[in-house]
């Protein structure tokens, strides 16, 4: 209640669409994306920056922990979430590879793991094994042990020209 007074209007572009939302200083990007914007593909895991489940991509296409990012600092910027990877009704290559290689089990971590992998693929055209390990060190997948996650990433890399 006492936080209402401090709320401010901000604008955030998510997956190319711009939203104007009323945000309190205590809210994170994750709160705003899942709350007023209503895109609940991004999940909230620990909400303390330790599991990577909430990972999205920033303007540069790099992985970003949305649960650790104060929303108001992102006024006027744009981000990509898991819902923004599809193009022309087709899943992105990393999404297809996750299905094909069995890199998804319960699926709760999956939006964050995929956005971490996408961040890696945005930063490196042909990531090495070390790049993949570094890029995926910030997310925790309890079900797959990351083994098939890495298979899926390697496959996308292999198919790149």
């Amino acid at each position: 209640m006492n936080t209402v007074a401090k709320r401010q209007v901000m604008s955030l572009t998510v997956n190319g669409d711009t939203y104007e939302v009323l945000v309190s200083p205590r809210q994170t990007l994750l709160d705003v994306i899942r709350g007023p914007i209503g895109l609940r593909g991004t999940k909230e895991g620990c909400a303390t920056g330790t599991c990577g489940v909430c990972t999205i991509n920033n303007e540069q296409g790099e992985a970003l922990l949305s649960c650790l990012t104060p929303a108001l600092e992102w006024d006027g910027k744009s981000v990509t979430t898991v819902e923004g990877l599809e193009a022309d009704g087709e899943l992105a290559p990393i999404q297809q590879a996750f299905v094909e290689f069995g890199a998804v089990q319960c699926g709760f971590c999956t939006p964050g793991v995929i956005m971490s992998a996408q961040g890696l693929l945005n930063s490196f055209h042909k990531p090495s094994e070390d790049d993949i390990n570094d890029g995926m060190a910030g997310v925790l997948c309890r079900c797959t042990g990351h083994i098939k996650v890495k298979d899926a990433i390697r496959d996308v890399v292999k198919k790149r020209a």
Partner: protein
Amino acid sequence: MAAKPEAPLSIIGRRQPRLDGFEKVSGRSEFTDDIRLPGMLHGKVLRSTQAHARILRIDTSRAEALPGVKAVVTNRDAPTLMFSEHQPVLAADRVRYIGEEIAAVAAIDLLTAEEALDLIEVEYESLPAVTTIRQALKSGSAPMHERAPDNIGPTMEKDWGDPDQGFAESDLVIEDEFRTPMQHNTLAELHVALADFSNPAKLHMYTPTQGAPLYQMELAKAFCLAESQVRIVYRNIGGAFTGRGRPKPHHFIAALLSRKAGKPVKIKATADEEFIMFRASGETFYKFRTGVTRDGVIKALEADITFDAGGHDEWAMILWLPSVYLNWLYKPVGVRYRGRFVFTNTVPKGSHHGGIMGRMSAGWQQHINHVAEAIGMDPAELQLKNAVDPGYASPDGSVFASCGLQDCIRTVVERSDWKNKYGKLPKYRGIGIGIGAQASGSKGADNDTSAAMVKVADDGIVTLYTGIPDMGQGSHTVMCMIAAEVLGTQPEDIRVVQGDSDITPFDWGAFSQRGTFTTGNAVKAACEDARDQLAAIAAAELDTPAGELVFRDGRVFAAASPEQSLSFGEVAAKTLHSAEGRFVMGRGFFNSPKPFGALAFSFGAQVAEVEVDPVTGAVALLKVWAAHDIGRVINQLAVEGQIDGQVFSGMSQVLYEECRVEDGLILNPSRLEYKLPRAYELPDVDYTLIETIDPYGPFGAKEVGEGPIVVSMSAVAAAVQNAVGAMVPEIPMTPWRVLRMLRGTADGSTSVDKHWSEGLEAPLSDTKS
């Protein structure tokens, strides 16, 4: 009767990507926290800050006065609402652990609810606390419960076969002690419950679960409702790993708040609260004893286990689980088991992934290696020599109708090049073999049954109604494959209706590795029933006796004349639009004819190779060779995924996971400080599946959901034991413990406390000899 599809099978055995994969990778999957009910409030729980105290006063008036607060509850609102026999849902006049539920608030948003919690005043009178097994068993320690003056809770003692005879026939009796710490399961999706009890005649509970019936029964009993007045709803579930078997206090509290506020209320764990809400595994002491002959025949096995139950004995099954496991690997003359719960002022305990047996086997396997060493035998050889085989009846009455354990051992020995490595690796390298067995759908209650229904639409699309939750293990895809095999369609043509106890038929749930086996048999029966109904019409159309029809690859035809066929959709349409207006509705049911225990068992062996760093003590897991007998493989891709996840979880428990507890407070309740392996630490896994065809399983299938983790934990622990040259007497085998072991084994001493029972005034137990 329609003819069964003849081998080779057309669907079963393929690498089938998950049928819900598209939803899951695209952000379309709904989880409980994604559900927004109209008027929904947010609940928060006030927890004890004291390990042991009397509650003198609770004042909620300032919280109630805060604008936006819609309900505040304490024990006064529901003094008779019990979570378990001796435990109220909200503490009455005494708290027994840090984190115990005292009061709760529902408000229009989370921030208001949090603020309201701060306004509740609780006055405590501290009582002396015992926060470890050792403290609790010291004579003169303050009892935590009047019913347990010595702090010992439920106990179990049981012999199978004749262990005394077995020890008498042994040339050598080897004893070891082992300890596992408190460990926590770190589910991806934290605990969450959304209750709508605005209408006191019906409680709607939205929550991730391993099975609706136990939630329905326990909530109905607590709130004096009929089971039909409790509806359990779940969507996708972010893992379970034994952690969502039954309702926990927050489910009852959410319902209580909702009833009082007249609005739906959601309670969701925070990252640190999760460590209390989960009810993880507690500290456990083990004493192992094995009798063996000089030529390597295992004659008698004994385990004596002391569990930290925490402040209440919530989950008595933990006592019983490891006992049966001792019966399933070798062929002793007798088995002796003793288990006991000890109360401490810590959070009540449940189970970790691997269901107690995993943690135990990290020590048990090292103990068996110790036995092998004592008689100068290769541990792989000792285990192969004693391993159970098909048709064996174990002392506890389990009969292994199918059993590929010996083949699993031979396979991993060969694929890992064991004979050239064991005892021959360079210093600081180690190799270990682990074996294991697991029941497929062990029956623990009469209503441990599964039912399934299917209906068929006139375009050939099949709808399957099932109460088996898919927590990630891939059960729904497996059920669709079974259905498609029976009906001769494709898994993509089966729609699953799940997750609502008002709609789906009874299914005890995803416990005890019963999904593929028990629900799979029910789904198969339901589809056979539907197929028979379709066959009656197809038989007339094709002028063939129904019993000679084959349903396969989308066609229906006579076995003798496959060129003359109808499509499955045509048969469905003709049936539904027949003059009698026949509706196709198949029903199936499976209730194991065995009243207690399991009909089928899966088996496995793994070899792990490790390297320890002599400077830091860090252990690198280099490679795992896995061979598992899981009966007929239904979905190869999912099976590999299950094995991967269990290698991960197994190495995690053996090498990393530990709750650091001081004076009853968990010091590391965060995924940063509670360590799990990251992507780069995982080894390569070499898989071999030994396909025994089980006579009771659907298409011969058995479980793969929990068998492998026990084997992984055994193999990794054994490999570290081999690398450091002695039994590592506790997990996790963290760098400092490994370093202490290396120093101890180098100078011939042991610098690690191996004898957990020493110094306890109340002995853990006498060992008969």
